[in-house]
């Protein structure tokens, strides 16, 4: 059921987007029997002439990947694009294997991941508590949300030259730029999460004579957790993008610098192999974070499903 959904699961992609608008309007993939494969069997027969019911999604997906490689190969072989700019897929795969066996390349990958991790930890260590506070006190919420919306609209990349001047080309520069970029979505989602706490439950808690601490721990935090998780999930993809961009535009370590080096050495096969590896890395992070979210805040998904 899950596999056939296509890219349903998430709209957040790479955006630094708050939960408020997109997440609410996003429909959840219905897991009712109505969407079962039987509804589309006629089309399956029509498309491939295979006739015997629908193909499972992974077969079609695999076919898609194979088709892409064949098209890629054909484009290069027929000379539509010169092999100097786009290498044939077979070469790229060989280079990919070489890179994966190369210890120094893996070291650079670790450098990138380190910057990613530190910036995430930094931004969430500050952003989540601050967001909880700003969301909890109504007098702070309005001016803070105006400020956050303004700051969020500034593309972090514009700060790159300044950050390089301030922090040099090392880890510090990557971390500070990336932490700045992901700080806002994390903060904003934490703020929204607290604001979304059910007023009725808060009143009930107060009626039972709960103190502030208990209200926070029992009602506010659990109801804010799904939004916080959404913020962190969005931030994970964004942080990776920002770290890699910083590496491309001037850093001394990381995958991005390796790729620019190969680019300057006119080795497009290595460049493409590196890009593929990063893509797979991005996918791993994406699915890992999604899984963690589902395990840690299972009520978040249930709630969103019920929202519809």
């Amino acid at each position, binding site marked *: 059921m899950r596999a056939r959904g296509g890219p349903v699961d998430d709209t957040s992609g790479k*955006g630094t987007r708050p939960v408020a608008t997109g997440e609410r309007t996003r429909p959840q993939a219905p897991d009712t029997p109505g969407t079962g494969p039987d509804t589309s069997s006629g089309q399956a027969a029509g498309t491939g002439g295979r006739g015997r019911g629908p193909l499972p999604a992974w077969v079609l*997906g695999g076919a898609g990947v194979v088709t892409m490689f064949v098209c890629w190969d054909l484009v290069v072989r027929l000379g539509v694009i010169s092999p100097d700019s786009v290498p044939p897929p077979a070469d790229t795969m060989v280079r990919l294997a070489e890179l994966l066996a190369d210890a120094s390349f893996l070291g650079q990958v670790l450098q990138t991941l380190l910057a990613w991790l530190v910036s995430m930890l930094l931004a969430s260590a500050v952003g989540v508590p601050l967001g909880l506070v700003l969301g909890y006190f109504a007098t702070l919420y*309005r001016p803070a949300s105006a400020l956050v919306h303004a700051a969020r609209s500034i593309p972090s990349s514009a700060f790159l*030259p300044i950050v390089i001047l301030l922090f040099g080309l090392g880890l510090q520069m990557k971390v500070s730029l990336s932490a700045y970029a992901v700080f806002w979505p994390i903060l904003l989602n934490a703020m929204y999460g607290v604001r979304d706490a059910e007023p009725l439950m808060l009143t009930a808690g107060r009626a039972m004579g709960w103190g502030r601490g208990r209200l926070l721990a029992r009602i506010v935090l659990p109801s804010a957790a799904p939004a916080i998780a959404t913020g962190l999930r969005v931030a994970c993809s964004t942080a990776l993008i920002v770290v890699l961009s910083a590496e491309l535009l001037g850093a001394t370590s990381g995958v991005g610098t390796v790729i620019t080096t190969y680019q300057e050495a006119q080795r497009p096969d290595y460049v493409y192999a590196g*890009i593929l590896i990063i893509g797979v890395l991005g996918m791993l992070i994406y699915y890992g974070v999604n899984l963690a979210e589902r395990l840690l805040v299972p009520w978040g998904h249930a709630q969103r499903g019920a929202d519809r």
Partner: protein
Amino acid sequence: MSAANGTGAVTPPAAPSGVSVAGVAGRVLRGLAWAGQRLWLLAALLVLWEVLARQAGSLFIPPFSTIVTAFADTWLSDRLVALFLSDQFLADVLPSLARLGAGYGMATVIGVCGGIVLGVWRQAGAFFNPLIRLGMAVPVTMLLPVAIVIFGITSGMNIFLIALGCLWPILVNTYDGIRGLDTTMTTAARSLRLSPRRHFLSVLLPGASPSIVAGMRISVGIGLVLMVISELFAATAGLGFFIVNQQKLFRFPELWSAILLVALLGILLNGIFELAERSVLRWHRAAKAGAGDRR
């Protein structure tokens, strides 16, 4: 930006009276109070910046007032013909905006059409799913070196990157919107035997539009980021190009003024989008409210 508004918060709204002038004044005061309530924190932070930067005297981070002066000198002029914008503005901001518009427009057309096709035709959706996943996972900025080889240092390179980056959220959101349509609605539409055209125009498109608009909105921010990054990397004109140049010339107030301009552009685009979203999707909110939405 808002120091003046900060004072408005304490002014009480004028007492209502029969005279319309008083009514207007009251509305103005209320507007000031509204802005003051929201903007005092921003104003306070800017004042803090000014004070700290003056004390530190850092070359890299000038006081905010210096940046504002540089902003006025660099981007504004006193000529009405040019809408009070300077030649620098026309030379650098217009190319950037043109690239952003072209890339974003292409992404919207391709994303919405592709998303609808993939959403309606399930086999195609499953076929392209892994590829879309991979495409989304590759940070678009990593394609900068490749795009430069293919396109050279041209506007086409910038447009390609902006379009590619904006494409994924729009595509996936459109797909989601079509896929997530209420099954009762689609079944009802089928039992009404609507023509394909009617089905598309009055069921699929309206049903998916909130999701499509959400995707388009995310993409505006992404497009702006990519516009700046791709121009920082390689361009012959544009805001990112200007920023790099000022950095090389050690003209930091001008550099910051460009950052301020990018920030204002971002806020402006977001604001425009919010307004558009509100007016385009008014029926959606009304329908949700009518359906007894708990929120």
